[in-house]
């Protein structure tokens, strides 16, 4: 019910919203929770396990009960806390985890069955046949569990991430945080003030308290105005600091008020040289019978609704606590016109007041499905019942130590406060201040904020001017903790997960005595509030049950995030094509224009084939392209291969060290095929190495390994051989490279070169400078197809033009462009290798390349490759296979067996790494790794692909199927 006056809401701005299908009105400045309470709504949700009806318990992000689904359709948002949702015009909220309706929930039957559903019951039953568990019990449990529902649709969610840097991050804009920000701001520090709420001020907005001679909220507003005027201070409202990471990195989630084009949220990574933790404290419920009923609310939340939102959460209230705050709550209620039926103070010496005070008494039980009254146990043992529709309770406050524990620091128990406090130095550079550090009055919070900022400024080498402290409340409320009220009945500790005191006691009896065991066994603290409301209470119960003190019992670990974060925020940028960069070669537009399907390799996009009219399958195009290369000429974009420029006086010595074969003997103007090993003796990559000057080489790598090879070479140069004077620069992006392959490749090349090639000076494996259309280019006479072939590299700006024209001229000769599919066929016909064979597990020995392992020098991987196990005869080694039986098909990923044996692991002889249909040979060919392979040429083996149901008899043969002597490439 909305009060006639007061509050920090704008009474002129009415906002229409819907909840559970009904239309309501609230005010600007409301949360969804305050607006619901203003409209007299008490029942807002259902609990997780027993589906108990639930109301609003808190006024903050720790709310365990009032979780709702916002919106409809693809973008609907489950599990929003009504207590933090800022009300806006047109907001639609729906209850969740209730069927058929919030009022009548079929699964509420679980509540009746609760004796059989105690902690860990599921570990003790459903042990029958697996299928029954998986088909009957598990689906039933899954359906009953869970809270809200994802839309299961793709929504256009707008989230973003950003970085921020500051001298001082102040976490929380309550009295301590505001004072810290003022102190640091006035000293000229670069300050970020982050506050979870949409209205800075913290508890100052919720209490009727004077600060500096005016209302606390008024002082907070004025402090914000002062801070806003400082150019060195950034105020981030609606920003929850969610995690602490190493070296002063903080995660923070900022929500933005809705507006067109604006992201919903920004996830910030804030790098702060120092931080002040002013995160306040969280009030805890008292474990008393039926304390989860709608109408039971934390006393501090009651004051928030009364004073900040001008909403009365009930008409007739009982206040229960053990601190002078109880009278404050009662007074605030009375002032708002709510009848205070009883003030129950567990302390023997309660404050005297004119309320119906029960000193030394407890509220033992809540009466009614929604609060209708309470049973009070008096000091003399008698019970008295009082009618009420609101119970405002407080078991005390838990300092909000969460963030101080993210780097594994454990909070320290303070006996006088009966509370855990941040361990000093738990997070380097983070200074706790205010009520999160045990301050219990506003005056102490203000002073602590100023002092913490002064300490931070000193660390930063800045001078604090120390602004004056405003006068504020400094009376200690003489609080005493109340954990559990004795008596019968179920007392909730974790409201959402339906963990009661009995569950914790049962866990202790069953030897789940470690706090971690208790948590995992009962699910206490694993709900959406992560134990913020009930955690310390649960500890106290476990401590009692196991005869230990609370500090002896210990705490569970606090883990990020402090408040849950939507995956869309942490993963912003990953949606759609944003997950990784797309790399396009210069000739990309030509591939697209020719209709080539593009495939991805190492972030690059490469054409698989170029379909022509009349071709119905990729194979037809691929066969044509491969034959074209064998018969006339083909043109292929090979720009994606890595290219590393190696220069320096010691370039040759360096390459001898990183290649297994020798590059120092390579003559200028020549290219050599090379192998690079990892230090463990296995092949890392292969490629060509061209010597283009006395101290100047060009190394090529496979497309996907380019980055890894560069890093490896930099390691070798800087760490392993720092005495060598050598420079490595990637020039992959600089050059667009095109392969021209086939009997007519030289003729085609001569059409475009400024001066024709002299065959005498351009033998196989030659390289050198040429010009094409007046543009300086690099030419390499190398072949990955077995044909007479070249690769020509031009600066990337000319790549598209060159490729386009080469394709046109090749087509005029009856040739044309060929893609990755044909490239693969051509190289398999020649028994040449790709990543299918160089899969990180193979050695030079395995691939019949032992001859490339120089015996005359040290090189990376030399020693390890010499291990006996890597030279064993029974290792799978490279062979060719071709079908010889009725079945003609080969498939990659199949296994090889002796024809007579069963296809089992024990009998496996090898695997097929690459296959292709060879249009040149008219049948399938394959490369395989076969035990003792090179000794088995001519044998018959059976290829079995269980998955694709193919079984083929094959002959083992030399992997070079076509032109094994290599004459075509050399001639």
């Amino acid at each position, binding site marked *: 019910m909305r009060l006639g006056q007061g509050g920090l809401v704008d009474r002129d701005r009415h906002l229409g919203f819907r909840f559970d299908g009904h239309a309501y009105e609230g005010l600007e400045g409301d949360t969804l929770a305050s607006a619901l309470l203003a409209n007299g709504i008490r029942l807002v949700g259902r609990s997780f396990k027993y589906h108990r009806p639930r109301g609003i318990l808190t006024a903050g992000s720790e709310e365990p009960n009032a979780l709702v689904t916002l919106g409809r359709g693809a973008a609907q948002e489950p599990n929003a806390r009504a207590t933090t949702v800022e009300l806006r015009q047109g907001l639609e909220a729906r209850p969740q985890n209730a069927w058929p309706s919030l009022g009548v929930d079929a699964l509420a039957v679980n509540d009746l069955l609760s004796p059989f559903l105690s902690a860990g019951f599921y570990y003790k039953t459903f042990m029958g046949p697996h299928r029954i568990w998986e088909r009957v019990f598990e689906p039933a449990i899954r359906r009953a569990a869970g809270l809200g529902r994802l839309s299961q649709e793709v929504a256009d969610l707008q989230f973003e991430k950003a970085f921020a840097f500051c001298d001082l991050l102040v976490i929380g804009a309550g009295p301590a945080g505001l004072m810290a920000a003022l102190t640091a701001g006035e000293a000229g520090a670069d300050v970020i003030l982050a506050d979870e709420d949409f209205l800075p001020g913290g508890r100052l907005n919720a209490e009727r308290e004077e600060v500096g001679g005016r209302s606390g909220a008024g002082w907070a507003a004025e402090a914000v105005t002062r801070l806003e005027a400082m150019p060195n201070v950034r105020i981030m409202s609606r920003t929850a600091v969610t995690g602490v990471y190493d070296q002063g990195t903080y995660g923070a989630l900022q929500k933005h008020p809705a507006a067109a084009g604006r992201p919903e949220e920004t996830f910030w990574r804030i790098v702060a040289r120092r931080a002040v933790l002013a995160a306040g404290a969280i009030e805890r419920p008292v474990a008393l019978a039926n304390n989860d009923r709608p109408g039971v609310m934390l006393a501090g939340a009651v004051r928030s609704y009364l004073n900040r939102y001008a909403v009365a959460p009930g008409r007739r209230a009982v206040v229960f606590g053990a601190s002078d705050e109880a009278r404050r709550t009662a007074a605030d209620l009375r002032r708002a016109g709510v009848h205070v039926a009883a003030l129950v103070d567990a302390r023997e010496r309660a404050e005297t007041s004119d309320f119906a005070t029960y000193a030394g008494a407890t509220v033992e039980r809540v009466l009614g499905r929604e609060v209708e009254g309470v049973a009070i146990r008096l000091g003399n043992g008698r019970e008295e019942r009082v009618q009420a529709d609101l119970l405002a309770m407080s078991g005390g406050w838990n300092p909000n130590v969460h963030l101080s524990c993210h780097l594994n620091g454990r909070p320290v128990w303070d006996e006088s406060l009966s509370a855990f406090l941040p361990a000093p130095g738990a997070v380097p550079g983070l200074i706790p201040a205010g009520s999160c550090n045990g301050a219990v009055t506003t005056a102490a919070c203000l002073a602590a904020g100023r002092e913490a900022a002064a300490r931070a400024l000193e660390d930063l080498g800045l001078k604090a001017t120390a602004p004056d402290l405003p006068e504020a409340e400094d009376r200690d409320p003489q609080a005493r903790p109340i954990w559990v009220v004795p008596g019968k009945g179920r007392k909730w500790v974790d409201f959402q997960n339906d963990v009661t005191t009995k569950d914790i006691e*049962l866990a202790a009896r069953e030897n789940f005595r470690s706090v971690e065991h208790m948590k995992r066994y009962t699910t206490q603290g694993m709900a959406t509030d992560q134990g913020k409301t009930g955690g310390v209470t649960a500890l106290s119960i476990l401590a009692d049950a196991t005869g230990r003190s609370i500090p002896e019992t210990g705490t569970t670990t606090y883990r990020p995030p402090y408040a849950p974060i939507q995956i869309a925020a942490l*993963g912003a940028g990953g949606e759609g094509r944003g997950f990784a960069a797309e790399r396009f070669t210069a000739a990309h537009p030509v591939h697209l224009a020719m209709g080539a399907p593009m495939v991805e390799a190492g972030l690059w996009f490469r054409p698989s084939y170029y379909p022509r009219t009349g071709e119905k399958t990729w194979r037809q195009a691929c066969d044509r392209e491969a034959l074209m290369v064998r018969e006339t000429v083909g043109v292929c974009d090979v720009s994606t291969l890595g290219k590393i420029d190696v220069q320096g006086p010691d370039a040759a010595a360096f390459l001898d060290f990183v290649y297994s074969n020798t590059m120092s003997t390579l003559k200028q103007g020549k290219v050599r095929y090379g192998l690079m090993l990892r230090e463990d003796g296995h092949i890392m990559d292969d490629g060509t190495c061209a010597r283009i000057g006395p101290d100047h080489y060009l190394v090529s790598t496979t497309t996907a390994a380019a980055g890894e090879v560069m890093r490896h070479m930099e390691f070798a140069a800087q760490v392993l051989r720092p005495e060598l004077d050598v420079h490595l620069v990637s020039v992959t992006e600089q050059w667009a490279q095109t392969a021209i392959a086939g009997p007519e490749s030289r003729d085609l090349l001569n059409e475009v070169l400024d001066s024709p090639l002299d065959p005498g000076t351009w033998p196989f494996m030659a390289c050198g400078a040429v010009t094409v259309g007046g543009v300086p280019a690099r030419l390499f006479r190398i072949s990955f197809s077995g044909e007479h072939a070249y690769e020509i590299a031009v600066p990337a700006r000319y790549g598209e033009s060159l490729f386009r024209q080469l394709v046109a001229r090749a087509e005029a000769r009856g040739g044309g462009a060929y893609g990755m599919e044909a490239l693969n066929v051509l190289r398999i016909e020649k028994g040449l290798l790709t990543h299918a064979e160089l899969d990180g597990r193979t050695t030079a020995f395995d691939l019949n390349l032992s001859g490339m392992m120089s015996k005359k020098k040290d090189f990376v991987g030399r020693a390890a490759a010499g291990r006996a196990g890597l030279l064993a005869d029974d290792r799978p080694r490279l062979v060719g296979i071709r079908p010889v039986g009725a079945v003609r098909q080969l498939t990659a990923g199949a296994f090889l067996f002796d024809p007579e044996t069963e296809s089992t692991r024990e009998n496996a002889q090898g695997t097929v790494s690459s296959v292709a249909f060879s249009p040149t040979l008219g049948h399938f060919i394959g490369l395989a790794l076969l035990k003792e392979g090179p000794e088995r040429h001519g044998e018959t083996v059976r290829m079995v692909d269980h998955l694709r149901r193919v079984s083929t008899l094959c002959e083992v043969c030399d992997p070079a199927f076509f032109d094994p002597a290599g004459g075509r490439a050399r001639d």
Partner: protein
Amino acid sequence: MRFGALRILKEGLTGNRGWGPHWRDPEPKPAYDIVIIGGGGHGLATAFYLAREHGLTNVAVLEKGYIGGGNVGRNTTIVRANYFLPGNSEFYSHSLKLWERMESDLNYNVMHSQRGIINLFHSDGQRDAIVRRGNAMINQGDDAILLDREALRKKLPYLNFDSGRFPIHGGLYHPRGGTARHDAVAWGFARGASDRGVDIIQNCEVTGIDTEAGRVTGVQTTRGAIRARKVAIVTAGRSGQVASLAGLRLPIESHVLQAFVTEGLKPVIDNVVTFGMGHFYISQSDKGGLVFGGDLDFYPSYAQRGNLPTVEHVMEAGMTLMPMIGRARVLRSWGGIMDMTPDGSPIIDKAPVEGLYLDCGWCYGGFKAVPGSGFALAHLLATDRPHDSAAGFRLDRFETGRGLMDEEGKGAQHNLH
């Protein structure tokens, strides 16, 4: 006490007063036949199988903290047998069979749920590699099915098939793969071992390993000296630290792997889905939380926590693969200490000190191995011969180069690039 539905009924009607400890908390005895260092899943399973398979019960499991507090209590709960290299294949196959009878073996419901695992592929090259894996699984006698794009669409309609950065071409389906309630596995094995007479001793940190003439004689602990004929180190990420007490250095580097869980949601992901290109995998727990993870943070760490770059990378991969999870809220993140070997495969072997045994190097795949590892180590401890299923997990394979099991082809070495 035997667990079952009738027992629950009886206890429910009588106020749940009859339940007792799931496992005993005895004082350590001065001597045991076998001391197992480490009360995690592997150590507890070893104790259980020592008692059940070999009748050896004069055994203690020594745990520094609380049992099940290491990786068995902080993983993403996936159980599978989809390896392709000999040595791994037979081991995980055997382990999965033990999972399938674990609940009746233990009289404890670990909520093993064979909901199926699907590995996605995005190119022909990846398809061939995944087919090789599937064929190896069938060679081993396990199950694998190749799903094309359309079959996958029917099973996982919520994936971003077309507009994501890596279009999905198909998947390898392993129907017998699934999940289990991780903590319960530790508790179930503890209860089974304890009931058979094994002493499980918590809050007992081993501070020294005693040897005489090159032979193990016992251990020093924070609760006194304990003699033992045989000592097994089963301490996952801490293996290097414990082995150093015996003067050993292991081929292990401890790295942090993070994992994440969201708030509870109504059922939406029915299988385990893995997205190799994005190093992302996800399933949904019976409580409704989406449980997911990604790759290592890639630096050595014992902190059991990680940093934001990996967190963000995992979330971005999730957004590209299944954007519908964008609205799910991450509730909690945590990290485990992964005992990474050079080739990514484990070690179950005798140590170079007589009477000392090693079970370590599980990298980020130790959970599914819990029963298989316990079974094999128990066999080795009891008979001094490796069990057939784990004969490949030799310590000397790195030195000799024989029998390396590098499933990922990343290199049998620690980042020495």
